[in-house]
């Protein structure tokens, strides 16, 4: 019996996903990065003395999002690569794929497992940050009531939306890493290339701005092409808008969410395509 002889099954996919999730949360790396991020967010209020530019609450929010983005990116890349290659290196992929399981079930199962782990990471980090901000804002309201005549300044719904967007961005990143892993031979290569992809996705708008209008047609086409190949991760950085003006526009949030979901399917689909061609 081959995979082609059975229909695509969501229950098999969820089994792989839940197994991946359990495997990931048992990893020391996940716990280490989670503790580090939580520690950093919790310690944000001790760094208040370093705050020169923005208001105290904005600084804590910036610091918290910094911890989320930095450790979240590291966690996404390493966990995705590690969980994918552990199946191949331990030969469990051979046993698994010898059974009537679609490769798309395997790839998307892995993705969903990692996506759930990152979701837990984001929820804990954002939850702690929101609690910290709520507590500090309450203290400031008592100390300086005239600055809070209209009530709380921070819009906690916006904080939540930024957290969701970061989670989706990590989802796209995880799908990119899965695509790299689908043709790569080593874990290390996947991790390093994953980090390069992260940097490129974050900075591709600079290349588009700086080199998109150069005289050389070849160079211009190349840069524009690169701008189309890599998703724009800078789009997800709405953290700057927290506590400023009218806050986050729900229409923009919707567009970015759709953008991320489509990219997850595109990269996931391509990872399946590439993995199907791979000999294990």
């Amino acid at each position, binding site marked *: 019996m081959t995979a082609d002889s059975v229909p695509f099954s969501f229950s098999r996919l969820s089994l792989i996903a839940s197994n991946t999730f359990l495997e990931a949360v048992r990893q020391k790396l996940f716990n280490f990065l989670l503790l580090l991020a939580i520690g950093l967010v919790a310690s944000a209020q001790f760094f208040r003395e370093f*705050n020169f*530019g*923005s208001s105290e609450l904005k600084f804590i929010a910036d610091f918290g999002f910094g911890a989320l*983005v*930095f450790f979240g990116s590291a966690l996404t890349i390493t966990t995705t690569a590690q969980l994918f290659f552990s199946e191949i290196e331990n030969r469990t992929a051979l046993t698994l794929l010898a059974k009537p399981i679609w490769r798309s079930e395997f790839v998307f199962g892995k993705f969903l497992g990692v996506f759930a782990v990152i979701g837990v990471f984001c929820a804990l980090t954002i939850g702690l940050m929101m609690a910290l901000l709520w507590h500090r804002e309450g203290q400031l309201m008592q100390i300086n009531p005239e600055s809070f005549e209209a009530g709380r300044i921070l819009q906690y719904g916006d904080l939540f939306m930024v957290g969701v967007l970061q989670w989706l961005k990590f989802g796209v990143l995880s799908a990119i890493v899965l695509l790299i892993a689908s043709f790569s031979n080593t874990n290390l290569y996947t991790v390093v290339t994953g980090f390069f992809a*992260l940097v490129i996705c974050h900075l591709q708008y*600079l290349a588009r701005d700086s080199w998109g209008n150069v005289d050389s047609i070849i160079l211009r086409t190349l840069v524009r092409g690169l701008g*189309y*190949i890599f998703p724009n991760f800078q789009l997800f950085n709405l953290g700057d*808008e927290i506590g400023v003006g009218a806050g986050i526009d729900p229409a923009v949030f919707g567009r970015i969410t759709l953008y991320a979901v489509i990219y997850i399917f595109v990269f996931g689909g391509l990872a399946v395509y590439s993995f199907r061609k791979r000999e294990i």
Partner: protein
Amino acid sequence: MLLTLPSPRALRTGVTLILSLLVAGLSLRPLEAPAWEQVRAKQPALRLESIKDALGQGVTVGLIGGFRAIVADFFWIRTNFVWEQNDLPATQTSIKLVTAIDPRPTYFWLNGSRMIAYDMPNWRIDKAGGYDRVPESVKRRFDLEQSKVAMNYLNEAFGFHPADPLIRLEIANIYLNRLKDTESAAQNYKIAAQHPDAPYYAARIYAELLRKMNRNTEAYAYLKTLYPTLPKDNLQAMSQVVLGRISELEDELAIPVEQRFRPE
């Protein structure tokens, strides 16, 4: 070392992947572009120079990672360190690096411009031999040069904080305190005072500068239109001081009693 070429199958897979991503990117552009436009309009994105300058400092990962505020804060500490040593090139570079990394807080722009306009001319005078030995013309040249740098820097800030009254006031302060250019200072105080969030003192200084330039009629007319807009219960608005100045101007201009300003 032998270089192995990829197999035709691997090449085909690679080309398919790239073309698929290209098609996906092109198809998603109509979805991305409006959102990106809005995101960009509301926040200053990282600029090429900040990445380029920060590369040497090894903080790129921090910048991309989201630690923009704290990276800028640490560079601000370093700015103050080189400022204490009166190191002009290092301070000037460091000030610009801070606002390149994080242009959002006006604090960096205002204090950076003060270092450039007020401290740096003194450092240059010290280096040239001290206040007693440097001729007045050279001192004036230093003032002009540094003020120009500071004002260019503040004009750059308008790109991130359009029409911010505090930045406009800083330009006015440099004209007034450093360059002793009352006319230009007055113009800038006037522009700043027109902003709804401007501090009340901007309008009062503008009126005082008009008086200083012997444009008492203009000052009188301006203060008469200003007074009704001032909240009477706000100490910073100093409505009684403004009323007192109106009265002084009426004496100076010899306004007949029946034509004098009577607040409602």
